[in-house]
């Protein structure tokens, strides 16, 4: 198994009452509520958490990015990836990921990622995402071409990594006279690419066609099983058998010394009123053209306040469905076993705490995970034969059948 530590890097020093009063905590919620003094403290705490996660035995650190919102302080995951490349020694740096459609110059992204891969001595896993709906607006990128830009930027980056330059790229959304970056990845053919997602079938299908592992973001167990049914059927169509090495899952999992404390802290996973990516304004989170046409009816009703958020669920429901797990190590381990048995992922991210959980409690949580939970999960992984892409030497992609290796001499 590949066990990762994750935090959204919550901006837990913002005035929550102001967010509730405004009715949304993304896009248009004013950055006058951002306190850079607290921001500086929090960024440095988060760096310490990452270093501790490596120390206690996590295999990877998962990073992401979001914009214009307090639920996530990372505005550029490559910045933290660069820091970790230089300040950690062993962990994989797993970006889930860079929002490709937001990039106006994918070659620049390819360069940054290649630099991170070299500085980290080949520890980069470079996931890609579409970016949230409101982030298209935050960056002025056309939501109607989100998926086209995603696929085209992906093609350009992989070519920049694998094809000797100079070459010319004439796409629909990206045109580059000369592609010839003097920074290429250490890992050959290129760093692994994993694709996280929560809702869109199109993304699952696309990932399966590329043979990229798909990382389900805190979906309920039944929904996760449906994701793997779909992924495996596309895999079969594409000529390979889907298995644990193609499956990842991000589990919200908070552990503490007592059940009561764990449960109280786990409520902080709902600090954005249960919204995954901040208390959302339905129109901003779902701009026209961004979401799958198959959800159009549900989203237009949600947008005018007639339907409930298709993506939100209550705390108690999320506990019942194990989208959130909380407790002492002793009580969370059987729940994790159920997750592994029923959905068989080999990549497991631990989203350990959120919101206003104190620095001390977060630190305790990371230690308890490392000392008591990870060893048990590793044993289960062996017993259930949940071999990660690294353990299974899985190919990078359907078109690159070799596993990635650092070049000699690194």
């Amino acid at each position, binding site marked *: 198994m590949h066990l990762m530590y994750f935090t959204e890097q919550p901006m837990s020093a913002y005035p929550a009452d102001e967010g509730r009063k405004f009715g949304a905590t993304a896009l*248009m919620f004013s950055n006058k509520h951002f306190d850079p003094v607290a921001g500086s403290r929090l960024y440095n705490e988060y760096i310490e958490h990452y270093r501790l996660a490596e120390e206690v035995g996590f295999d990877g650190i998962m990073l992401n990015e979001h914009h214009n919102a307090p639920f996530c302080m990372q505005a550029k995951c490559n910045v933290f990836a660069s820091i970790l490349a230089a300040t950690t020694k062993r962990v994989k740096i797993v970006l889930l990921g860079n929002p490709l459609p937001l990039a106006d110059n994918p070659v620049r992204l390819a360069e940054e990622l290649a630099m991170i891969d070299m500085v980290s001595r080949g520890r980069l896993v470079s996931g890609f995402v579409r970016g949230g709906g409101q982030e298209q*607006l935050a960056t*002025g990128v*056309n*939501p*109607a*071409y989100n998926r086209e830009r995603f696929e085209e930027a992906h093609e350009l980056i992989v070519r920049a990594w694998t094809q000797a330059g100079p070459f010319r790229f004439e796409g629909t959304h990206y045109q580059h006279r000369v592609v010839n970056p003097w920074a290429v990845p250490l890992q050959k053919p290129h760093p692994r690419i994993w694709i996280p997602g929560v809702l869109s079938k199109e993304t699952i299908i696309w990932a399966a066609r590329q043979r990229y592992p798909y990382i389900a973001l805190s979906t309920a167990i039944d929904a996760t099983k449906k994701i793997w049914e779909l992924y495996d059927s596309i895999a079969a169509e594409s000529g390979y058998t889907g298995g644990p090495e193609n499956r990842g899952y991000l589990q919200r999992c908070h552990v503490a010394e007592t059940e009561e404390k764990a449960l109280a802290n786990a409520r902080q996973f709902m600090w954005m009123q249960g919204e995954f990516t901040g208390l959302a304004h*339905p*129109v*901003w989170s779902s*701009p*026209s*053209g961004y979401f799958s046409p198959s959800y*159009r*009816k549900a*989203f*237009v*009703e949600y*947008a*005018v*306040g*007639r339907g409930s958020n298709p993506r939100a669920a209550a705390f108690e429901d999320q506990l019942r469905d194990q989208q959130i797990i909380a407790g002492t190590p002793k009580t969370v381990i059987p729940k994790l076993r159920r997750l592994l048995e029923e959905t068989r992922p080999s990549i497991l991210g631990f989203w350990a705490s959120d919101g206003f959980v104190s620095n001390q409690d977060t630190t305790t949580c990371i230690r308890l995970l490392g000392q008591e939970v990870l060893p048990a999960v590793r044993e289960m992984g062996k017993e259930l034969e949940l071999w990660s892409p690294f353990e299974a030497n899985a190919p990078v992609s359907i078109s690159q059948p070799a596993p990635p290796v650092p070049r000699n001499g690194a």
Partner: protein
Amino acid sequence: MSVAAAPLAWTTEDVSVAGASVRLRSAGSGAPLLVLHHDIGTPEQLPFYAALARRFTVLLPSHPGYDGSERPAWMRSVRDVAVLYQALIARRGWSDVALLGLGFGGWIGAEMATMAPRGFRRLVLVGAMGLKPQGGEILDQALVSYIEYVRAGFADRAAFERQFSADPSTAQLEQWDLNREMTFRIAWKPYMYNPTLAPLLGGVETPALIAWGRGDRVVPAVCGEQYARALPKSRLSVVDGAGHFVEMEQPEALAKLIVQFVDES
């Protein structure tokens, strides 16, 4: 305002032109008047259309990607729509056409006029988008819901409810979403204007009427003044008791203005 007793009997057809298929409605008799609808699309029946049809052959295409017209995946700009409509006019052999552009359709009409400086009998722009306002901003529909956006186009909320009901149907919302998606595809950035339009308007020799609802909250009234300055043969007329959707709030008054203006020629 009076409401037409009987619905207008449109003839509807799908016309293949250039790389697209355009749903075209026509009704009435007289000189041809090409009506270019708003970004929200248009209801099929409006008292305004009935009033126009008494004097003109009203030609009402659904813009590519809007209402019933299929979306051309290649289309990237409002100018593309304008070029396509030039081809539609040529294909159908219409001549001496008067152009009427409503809001977003006004932008398309203005682009068409720059392409054919003497090609039209008259040009009427009502609350037209297309120019960068010298003060204020064009309302960004990406930040408001479908209902809020359409409501903002009416000076009088009751007029919105008379037209679309207080609680528009889900089918209507879905159509507004489809239309909004097409607007994003062709007018996302810069939003709702073309920086190269204003200088080109200086070459237009077609007489133009610029009409603006006094209560327009979607496109700042200063854009009307900008159009009037940019178009050499133009005049500006402000309509009371109307917002952006002048044709839905003051159908008789606007129709009268248009008939008078086109008849002058």
